[in-house]
């Protein structure tokens, strides 16, 4: 009988006896979640499990340090999704040791109102496989009317004085107050818009939620997928020689992967919308301080090809005198704005998860010289070729590693390092909703 504590904590006879007494036989059975206990006994049971691992330390190489640096709460809509999330938590905890609380919100089930809790200690290797660490997992299933109060129910289960990160799996619950209540409780709310069934609605929901709840910090794993691209774009303009071209950027092109038949891939069902490309476009638009042209007829969305194109008015900074010098005595034209274009289009790349960014190109004209800054993913999903093409020739070519970042665990690792709000993400998200509003 080892399922209460996975992998390596062995129960002795006495423990088994005690376990039998505490098992609540009513309600669903979730063997993968550990031992079912009454919610009031969660702390006691966890202490008991830690004491058992201490015994284990004497005979093996476990490290018996009861450390947590944060609370991670994951919300799943049903048991199946929760079990999937539970599977990869060991990997997340290997970087951020936390008390992991898995909430299963069976709001629409036929079950009567109820709350069931399970506890377990789970372990992961830290030095090859000979030394292991443990982390605490508490699973709470709320059904029926209990779901509405889950934010209150879960509070006693959280470790005090540590930040609370809430990861909401799948689409946010439009029209439900649970999300807002849990968000208020949390230091940071994480979603993955790549898995939204209705991505546009989801982004709009997040955008308006941020406006209504300005104290809540929200982040999106898709923003993490865009981060390496942001870093590479930034690197272009670290070079003093290229920086002047920033003011001349007038066209931004972004391509994202689609499958030939728009079918789902081995990666699973994923969002049909190019959210990563949109977030990148939103970020570029924010940083460059570009505005959408007023005439919406100039913005194009072609559902047949999946191509977006927005006409942009871009400020050129200080007032500049164009075309004719004043000293010549001819009339001049003062202007602070010029035109620009943001274009997003699909690229058939069946070996990649749909939505993955494949190309970013910034085209600049400056004093009759041009520069094209390109980041181009070739056939290889792991690498990006970067280049700068100037009027006088191509320079600074190299290959860099940009994994397709499908790995939600790695992205979650990064999110859990951020404390507080990410204003740049929030601004970029607002830009995305503005861009999408032109469809």
């Amino acid at each position, binding site marked *: 009988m080892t399922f209460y504590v996975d992998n390596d904590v062995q129960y002795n006879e006495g423990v088994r006896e005690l376990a039998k007494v505490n098992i609540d036989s009513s309600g669903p059975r979730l063997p993968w979640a550990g031992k079912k206990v009454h919610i009031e006994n969660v702390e006691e049971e966890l202490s008991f499990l830690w004491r058992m691992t201490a015994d284990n330390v004497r005979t093996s190489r476990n490290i018996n340090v009861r450390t947590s640096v944060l609370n991670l709460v994951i919300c799943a809509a049903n048991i199946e999704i929760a079990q999937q999330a539970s599977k990869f938590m060991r990997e997340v905890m290997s970087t951020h040791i936390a008390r992991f609380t898995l909430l299963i919100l069976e709001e629409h089930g036929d079950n009567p109102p109820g709350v069931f809790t399970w506890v377990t200690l789970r372990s992961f290797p830290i030095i090859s496989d000979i030394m292991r660490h443990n982390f605490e997992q508490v699973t709470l299933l709320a059904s029926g009317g209990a779901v509405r109060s889950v934010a209150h129910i879960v509070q006693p289960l959280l470790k005090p004085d540590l930040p609370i990160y809430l990861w909401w799996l799948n689409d946010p619950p439009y029209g439900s107050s649970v999300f807002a209540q849990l968000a208020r409780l949390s230091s940071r709310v994480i979603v993955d818009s790549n898995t939204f069934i209705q991505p546009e609605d989801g982004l709009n929901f997040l955008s308006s939620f941020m406006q209504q709840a300005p104290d809540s910090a929200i982040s999106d794993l898709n923003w993490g997928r865009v981060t390496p691209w942001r870093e590479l774009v930034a690197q272009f*303009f670290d070079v003093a020689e290229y920086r002047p071209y920033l003011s001349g950027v007038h066209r931004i092109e972004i391509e994202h992967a689609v499958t030939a038949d728009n079918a789902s891939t081995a990666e699973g069902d994923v969002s049909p919308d190019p959210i990563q490309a949109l977030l990148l476009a939103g970020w570029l638009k924010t940083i460059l301080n570009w505005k959408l042209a007023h005439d919406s007829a100039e913005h194009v969305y072609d559902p047949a090809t999946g191509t977006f194109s927005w006409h942009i008015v871009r400020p050129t900074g200080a007032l500049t005198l164009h075309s004719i010098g004043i000293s010549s005595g001819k009339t001049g034209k003062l202007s602070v704005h010029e035109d620009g274009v943001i274009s997003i289009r699909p690229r058939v790349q069946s070996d990649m998860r749909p939505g993955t960014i494949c190309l970013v190109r910034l085209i600049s004209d400056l004093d009759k010289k041009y520069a094209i800054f390109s980041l181009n993913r070739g056939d290889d999903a792991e690498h990006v070729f970067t280049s700068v093409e100037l009027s006088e020739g191509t320079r600074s070519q190299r290959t860099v590693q940009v994994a397709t970042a499908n790995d939600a665990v790695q992205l979650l690792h990064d999110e859990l390092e951020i404390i507080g709000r990410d204003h740049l993400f929030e601004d970029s998200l607002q830009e995305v909703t503005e861009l999408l509003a032109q469809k």
Partner: protein
Amino acid sequence: MPQRSVAEASNPFREGIRIKQSLEPCVMVIFGATGDLTHRKLLPALYNLALEHPLPAGFSVVGFARRPYSDEDFRQQALNSINEYSRQKPVNPQIWESFAAGIHYLQSNFHDLAGYEKLGTLLNQIDQERGTAGNRIFYLSTPPSQYPEIIQNLGAAGLNRNRKGWTRIIIEKPFGHDYNSAKELNRQVGKVFREEQIYRIDHYLGKETVQNILVFRLANGIFEPVWNRRYVDHVQITVAENLGLEGRSGYYEEAGAIRDMIQNHMLQLLTLVAMEPPIAFDANAVRDEKVKVLHALQPLVGREAATNSIRAQYGPGWVGGHQVPGYLEEQGVSPESTTETYVALKLFVDNWRWAGVPFYLRTGKHLPKRTTEIAIQFKQAPLMLFKRSEAHGQVEPNVLTLRIQPDEGISLKFGAKVPGTDMQIRAVNMDFFYGSSFVREQPEAYERLLLDCMLGDSTLFTRRDEVEAQWTLIQGILDEWKTEPRSNILTYESGTWGPQAADEFIWRDGHRWRRP
């Protein structure tokens, strides 16, 4: 052209990104490119930076050494180094190919000015081809005796500055052999490079746990109030190695433990523990405070040096289950050698914060285990309430231990009541392990330091006055040791914690060495 800090350049896309400053493309010229440090540390660190791409496009490396290598030979050597020593294995062929395209080699003697002129031509060519814009780092990874001629020739060839970009020089330890040579080296390098161009490297400062000393002290409000003579009884800093010479007898015979460990690494640890909070976390503010500590160290000269220091050599013994020879029997060591492999010092920081608090430093080779730690022992509670109970005599002083390596972390020892009806008190440790709270791979110290140099941030490098102040203290001890007969050098059995006299040395003050 004045040295331009890249931090001053603004790139709006950097907002909200991990590295907030612009990292401009540059060329790193490694003098001593075929040596051990380049092989084990520098090339693997640069590759790791390329792989995780903080390194900018166009970044290039030029190996400068005497061996008749071609570019291709040097690239192959670099690949072998990375394959063997990089923390990121296996090598990613595409990243390697891209990184290798920027690797060059120039064969020259260090004294040959023509070699430096060729180097200038090559650097200009790289600027043209790879857009490195005149930004250069010269890394001195040669034996220290060659530093002066390299520096002089860099100046003579006009490579110490250029009109297009910035130029920096990284100088490896040991920085000087004694006070005069360090001062002379500072003078020579100062004739060619301005201080803000000079990065004296001490890789200890690149370690995460060393940087955490400042975070621990200054980002937490509860420690600083007790971080002074009113509460601290004494401080012990231990850098113990279980290894012996490992084939470095030539270097070690000249250096000894005091130059190899105390003058640089251990004084760095001491200053980080003892310094006042700086007014800002920037290079000069931090180093100003560290220098003040060094200036406040009570000088050890004459009899003071003799009574406050212990030196010894290891004798034969057993380390890690292996029988090992004594120092004098090691290959390449003179049987008459006076080089110390163990040093213990008692130092005082004469300022208001630390007056009267002894700082005990000890380091040695062939000690029982490899460990680096700083232990701050606090004074006993002023009134022992439990003296009439069974707890009398059981209460140990509180000790805060900062473990630098291995098992990086922090421990606080305090007394706790043993459960039961009687009053028994036992010392328990409250432990924080980096490895259990932050289970992630730490970057190599050299990765951090090379990146800082490229960014123009010298906070974690040693300043001119700092290195001279370090040597001022050490010189007093060296001078006294020179006058002592050889018989004063003690011997300790390999695999022990040092000579018996070192125990007596600390017992005299009513303390005892910790057993890490």
